[in-house]
């Protein structure tokens, strides 16, 4: 873990109400695993809000990295409004990321809403390692989707929207279809109802191998000190999302 005052480089719109912000942060870009996160302070005084917010690494490029986030409260609004050159206190990288297989495999990435954030970096690494990647993303409407150009060309990008404005209508977990048999491994990130639905669908289809998922919980500290981000697992007791996760086995939680 490093603590750094990173330099904000740019903020661009990801979709309606969501942004991609790039930082220059040499101390926070080395040895990062896909799915790890960084704690970003979203105020200058750091008293209100007092705690940093956890963001997945969205993309990494040398000593720069980006986060992708929806504006959901004061912290994310503050962040989205900061100008280029703003110094932003942050610390990381933290948590346990996805484990990709060694041999070239078929990887299905499933994302819901802003849960897409860690999956682009995951897809980039997977493609570089020779895996075949399908990214299935669910969103409320076609206006709440990441542009296809954000994904590596080699990735098959499949979109499902709740209102059917882009791609098939419904939830991403209703449209897994042929992809779930195709996939050697499944990785997912999204809201808890998506995880529950994914677990139900996969169990019904008889899949034994559990996907790896990245979970989100309110994390005041991000490094296992406060015990605020408890995740109650089925067989291994209570875990901390920040320190023991955020990667969990889907079937161990849902």
């Amino acid at each position, binding site marked *: *873990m490093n*603590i750094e005052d990173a330099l904000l480089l740019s903020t661009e719109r990801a979709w309606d109400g969501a942004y991609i912000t790039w930082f220059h942060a040499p101390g926070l870009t080395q040895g990062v695993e896909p799915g790890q996160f960084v704690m970003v*302070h979203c105020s200058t005084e*750091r*008293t*209100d*809000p*007092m*705690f*940093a917010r956890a963001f997945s690494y969205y993309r990494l490029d040398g000593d720069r990295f980006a986060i992708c986030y929806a504006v959901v409260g004061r912290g994310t609004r503050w962040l989205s409004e900061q100008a280029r050159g703003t110094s932003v206190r942050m*610390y990381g990288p933290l948590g346990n990321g996805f484990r990709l297989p060694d041999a070239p495999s078929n990887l299905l990435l499933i994302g819901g809403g802003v849960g897409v954030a860690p999956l682009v970096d995951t897809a980039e690494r997977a493609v570089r390692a020779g895996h075949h990647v399908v990214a299935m993303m669910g969103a409320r409407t076609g206006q709440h989707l990441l542009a296809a150009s954000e994904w590596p060309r080699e990735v098959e990008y499949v979109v499902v929207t709740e209102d059917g404005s882009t791609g098939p209508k419904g939830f991403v977990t209703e449209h897994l279809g042929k992809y779930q048999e195709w996939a050697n491994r499944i990785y997912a990130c999204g809201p808890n109802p998506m995880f529950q639905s994914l677990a139900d669908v996969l169990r019904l289809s008889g899949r034994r191998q559990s996907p790896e998922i990245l979970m989100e*919980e*309110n994390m*005041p*500290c991000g*490094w*296992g*000190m*406060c*015990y*605020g*981000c*408890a995740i*109650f697992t089925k067989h291994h*007791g*209570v875990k901390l999302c920040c*320190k023991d996760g955020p990667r969990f086995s889907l079937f161990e939680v849902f």
Partner: protein
Amino acid sequence: MAPNLSVEIAPGQKTGLLLRNPVMPASGTFSWGLEFAKHFDISRLGAVVSKGVTMVPRAGNQQPRVAETPAGMLNSIGLQNIGIHDCLTRMAPLWARWDVPVIVNIAGDSIEEFGEMARMLDGIPGISGIELNISCPNVDIGGIEIGQNVEASARATRAAVRNTDLPVIVKLTPNVTDPVALALACEAEGAAAICAINTVLGLAIDTKRRRAVLPRARGGLSGPAIKPIALRIVYDVAKAVRIPVIGCGGISTGEDAIEFLMAGATAVQVGTATFANPRALLDVLEGMEAWLTREGYDDVSQVIGCALPEGTRAG
């Protein structure tokens, strides 16, 4: 010359507790110390204080467990912990290898359990002191129920002190009318030091869902928001007792710590600040040392209690 920072927080006890400096974590904000030791040099701390340990392991409370508030937070973790057995078998051997004294915070369900747990910790390598948690607001039994009652606090202290040679620190709740009466009662039963304060009872409302944010409604408020309350109680307690006081509540900078020392604290605990700044403990330590150096002090003891009224400063 760098000022001398070492302080004794259990003078005149069967076993003393000499700290290399007055800065230690607050219980429940430092887990078992392993995470800190992974990222920082833990031997720079004056002491380590463990998470609250119970006789049997606890899973803690349901989500949500925390609510962020201006300059602070409400927590309702519910003493999630590995239980005293695992603490003794898994943690103490690791602590014994550290060059820093470890104080174990114990949370009994009853007076008797405080005595029993104190006995279990006695003589264990790697454990240098005990802090009695009679002030946790987030559990149904034990905790604050004991700490809000003078007689029960005294009996819990007596039970612990009789069962161990380790120094026993009693951590007080601020959620009482007269913390000084509690402190005096615990001192009379042999407490080595008083730690003030645990969290302040508070409440947050979720306006969208039209109910309390936390499932148990009440939670414990911590962070800079409670610093003036903590300072007031440290000041009042330090005026009244002869044993050392450990100040706790909203400390996040070296100058915060100096304020507590001036109010009569011999040592300080840093808690919630660690959540916002992983190196808060070290920042407090370095800030305190820089302040003392700048102001020309050669020993930290020279500022302890200097803001107390004449004639009330202990030894």
